[in-house]
């Protein structure tokens, strides 16, 4: 398709509008978006990808703004993908993260893009990862993914990042409790933002204890992105000590601690490269990407087959009438597909 090719050329030539449009196509899952992303692939791998997650109001957007400002002062270009929830009822959304980007207004070399879940959380992690690729191919030095951290989907989303940062507001015992449930394992770095507030010391202390406890029972990477054990066995031997998530204190509103945080990012980067962890994570990511695409494709085939056989409604009627059951139906519908594969 010539439109895709033209768009890709424009993006690689550094046209902002083309980058914006490519991300739209990725979000919309327009016909041809796959061709685009596949064309992007060979130009990716140069950006440092940082994920930032945390509870609402933790200060993520403000911190992202200050980070972007810092990187710009170093002469580096920045891309930001900010994800907000959408209404499950109307699909509508107010994407408010952009408001906090006050330090980089009018600077086109900070490319900020808001994305919403569009009622399809499963696909969002793929769309996010693809948007990151677009920014990477465009030539951004740093790409930041920002998302509200609440559950598995957010964990999948930040899974597209090389370094995952979890923001914790101070004085929030409950938040720390929440962290135990899963976000703890994904954090490469903890940030206690609003460190000038009461209770910040205590939160730092609680996190420190938790990190120590965590070290005993599991390694930092165990189940990092939910991969199966076979994948884990492919681990390259690491000759460095395992990474212990550091805890950085920041006051994002006035930029305090941002330099420390950037230094910590660099340390983590060095660790990733020296230990072979970066390659391992990227391999895992590619493996997961292949699996996701195949799952989606297979699901599409199944859906087509379902339509060919009369649509899901007819089968539901059968079950409701007591003539059959979902398991038998699944077997029947899969039959022709299974036959096809076994014939080969």
């Amino acid at each position, binding site marked *: 398709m010539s439109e895709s090719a033209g768009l890709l050329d424009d993006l690689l030539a550094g*046209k*902002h*509008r083309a980058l*914006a*449009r490519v*991300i*739209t*196509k990725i*979000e*919309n*899952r*327009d*016909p041809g978006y*796959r061709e685009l992303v596949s064309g992007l692939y060979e130009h990716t791998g140069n950006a440092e990808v940082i994920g930032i997650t945390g509870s609402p109001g933790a200060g993520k957007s403000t911190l992202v703004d200050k980070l972007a400002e810092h990187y710009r002062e170093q002469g580096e270009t920045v891309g930001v993908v900010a994800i907000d929830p*959408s*209404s499950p009822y*109307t*699909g*509508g*959304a*107010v*994407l*408010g993260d*952009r*408001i906090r980007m006050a330090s980089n*207004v*009018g*600077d*086109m070399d900070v*490319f*900020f*893009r*808001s994305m*919403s879940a*569009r009622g*399809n959380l499963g*696909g969002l992690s793929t769309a996010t990862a693809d948007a990151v690729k677009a920014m990477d191919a465009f030539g951004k030095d740093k790409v930041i993914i920002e998302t509200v951290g609440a559950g598995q989907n957010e964990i999948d989303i930040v899974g597209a990042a090389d370094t995952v940062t979890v923001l914790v507001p101070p004085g929030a015992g409950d938040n720390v409790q929440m962290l135990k449930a899963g976000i703890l394992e994904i954090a490469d770095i903890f940030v206690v933002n609003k460190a000038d507030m009461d209770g910040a010391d205590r939160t730092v202390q609680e996190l420190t204890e938790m990190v120590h406890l965590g070290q005993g029972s599991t390694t930092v990477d165990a189940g990092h992105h939910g991969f199966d054990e076979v994948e884990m066995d492919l681990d390259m031997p690491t000759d460095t000590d395992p990474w212990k998530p550091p805890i950085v204190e920041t006051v994002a509103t006035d930029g305090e601690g941002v330099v420390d945080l950037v230094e910590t990012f660099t340390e983590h980067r060095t660790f990733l490269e020296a230990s072979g962890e970066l390659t391992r994570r990227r391999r895992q990511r590619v493996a997961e990407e292949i699996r996701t*695409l195949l799952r*989606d*494709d297979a*699901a*599409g085939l199944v*859906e*087509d087959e379902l339509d060919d056989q009369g649509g899901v409604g007819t089968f539901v009627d059968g079950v409701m009438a007591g003539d059959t059951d979902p398991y038998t139906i699944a077997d029947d519908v899969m039959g022709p597909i299974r036959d096809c594969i076994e014939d080969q």
Partner: protein
Amino acid sequence: MSTDQSQRSIRCLVAKVGLDGHDRGAHVIARAFRDAGFEVIYSGLHKAPDEIVQAAVQEDVNVLGISILSGAHNTLVPKIVEGLKEYDAFDDTLILVGGVIPDDDKAELKELGVAEVFGPGTPMEETVEYVRENAPER
């Protein structure tokens, strides 16, 4: 669920430009757009035309709604239009203006490329419907 299914959504930037602190209208519109199923990006108050252009280009919005109650529309809107042209974003962005705009100025704004001007008292449904019908395809 096939990945062939595209998932389009109308994206709108609701923008406040210049020295104008009256944002109730912008908030109400942002809310109504959200409830209509659109994705809304709100600019926040006191933005410069450059910032609005940057946001409209990067977010690739179908619709740019500019709310102005300060009377400075004849200065601010042309700057935004210029900026959009500079980034090849003018042709496929629906530009709307809301607020207090004298009739004489409406024609001039439309001449510039503003698709429609919605004054005080416009029913919300009318604006939403207009966006649904006229938002450019992506």
